[in-house]
């Protein structure tokens, strides 16, 4: 089994309620239900998203020991994307326009694209993106080792489809809720407003600075 990486970006997520125990077969079975399915031979532009493991990148097997990462459960989402390379499309369009001696009409451009999709896409290999996440079941915390917004949304969706559990993304409000504050402080957190820190103006005359409390009172 390869080791998880020790650098990069991370976003934390939290969940509420009870979810499957990663040590149970039902957890692996839930991943299997939403396993990754290849689009290697697809003849159209497609995106496929599903679970694999660090040991088996195909999504064929989900042994419980392959998910074990010590304190955490190691989840791996695979995103394959098959797309007609735009440069190929441009080259074929340039050739067609040169042969014709003028620009292609919108209809001709569409027909050229459809024709190229039929011919080229079965030969185009998808791009592959493996995204790792560490699930700390007893802490109801998940750390996604990727900071892309679109990847985060794909992960959120796949996780929900698999475990019927919505994830809450960490941000200054959510992380505050997780920080063990007392109810009164939590209430204040929700209503907090930014502090307007004093701004000093360049001046030769030394003068008394307005205190923070006075400034907030006047605002």
């Amino acid at each position, binding site marked *: 089994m390869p*080791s998880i990486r020790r650098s990069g*970006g991370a976003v934390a997520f939290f969940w509420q309620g009870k979810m499957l125990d990663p040590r149970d077969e039902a957890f692996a079975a839930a991943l299997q239900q939403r396993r990754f399915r290849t689009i290697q031979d697809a003849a159209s532009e497609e995106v496929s998203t599903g679970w694999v493991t660090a040991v088996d990148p195909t999504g064929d097997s989900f042994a419980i020991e392959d998910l074990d990462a010590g304190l955490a459960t190691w989840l791996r989402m695979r995103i394959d994307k098959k797309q007609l390379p735009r440069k190929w499309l441009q080259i074929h369009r340039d050739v067609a326009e040169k042969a014709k001696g003028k620009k292609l009409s919108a209809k001709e451009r569409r027909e050229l694209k459809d024709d190229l999709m039929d011919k080229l896409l079965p030969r185009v290999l998808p791009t592959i993106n493996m995204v790792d996440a560490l699930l*700390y079941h007893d*802490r109801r*915390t998940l750390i996604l080792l990727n900071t892309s917004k679109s990847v985060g949304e794909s992960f959120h969706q796949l996780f929900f489809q698999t475990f019927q559990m919505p994830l809450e993304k960490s941000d200054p409000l959510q992380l505050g809720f997780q920080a063990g504050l007392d109810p009164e402080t939590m209430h204040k957190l929700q209503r*907090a407003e930014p502090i307007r820190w004093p701004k000093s103006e360049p001046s030769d005359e030394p003068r008394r600075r307005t205190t923070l409390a006075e400034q907030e009172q006047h605002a």
Partner: protein
Amino acid sequence: MKHEPKTAPSGAETHGFLGEEFLTWIWFRWETEGGEFHLPGGRVVGVALDDFLTFSAPSDDDTEQTLRHGLPTRTEEARTALRQGRRLRRARMIVAEGPRQWSVTVDGASLRLSGAKMPEDAEECESENDRTADRTANWLALHELVQSLYGMFLRERLADGYLKSAGEKQAHWMQQ
């Protein structure tokens, strides 16, 4: 006709300023009290700002200001930004607990971590599985340390009388 937003605003959109105030508070505490934080549970952690700072734009019409390399916290540009009441938008920091040390850039508005570097693998790691378990513990520890520091900041920031006590001290420091 009343237009309702399609989804509720996230905390990053509504409370992003708190993450920025948190980073600025870390800087204040580091400079004025040495950067040692005593966290709940008896954990002691050292925090220092490193070689990358971005100051948030005061308004949509203003620009963010980024300082990199060397010791940006000691530059005149950084002091000027503080005097203008600017908060830290992003900062690279070094976090140390016992023999373990992390380096990470924290985005204030979202509290997202980027460019994180975990401590070196423990010497006892003999297999890939050992390394994974060690790193998994380190990822969690980094998250928990940031969360604990943030909780410490919130308790101080949201306490009654903050503006007249700790907040006023920070305002004074920012004007120096």
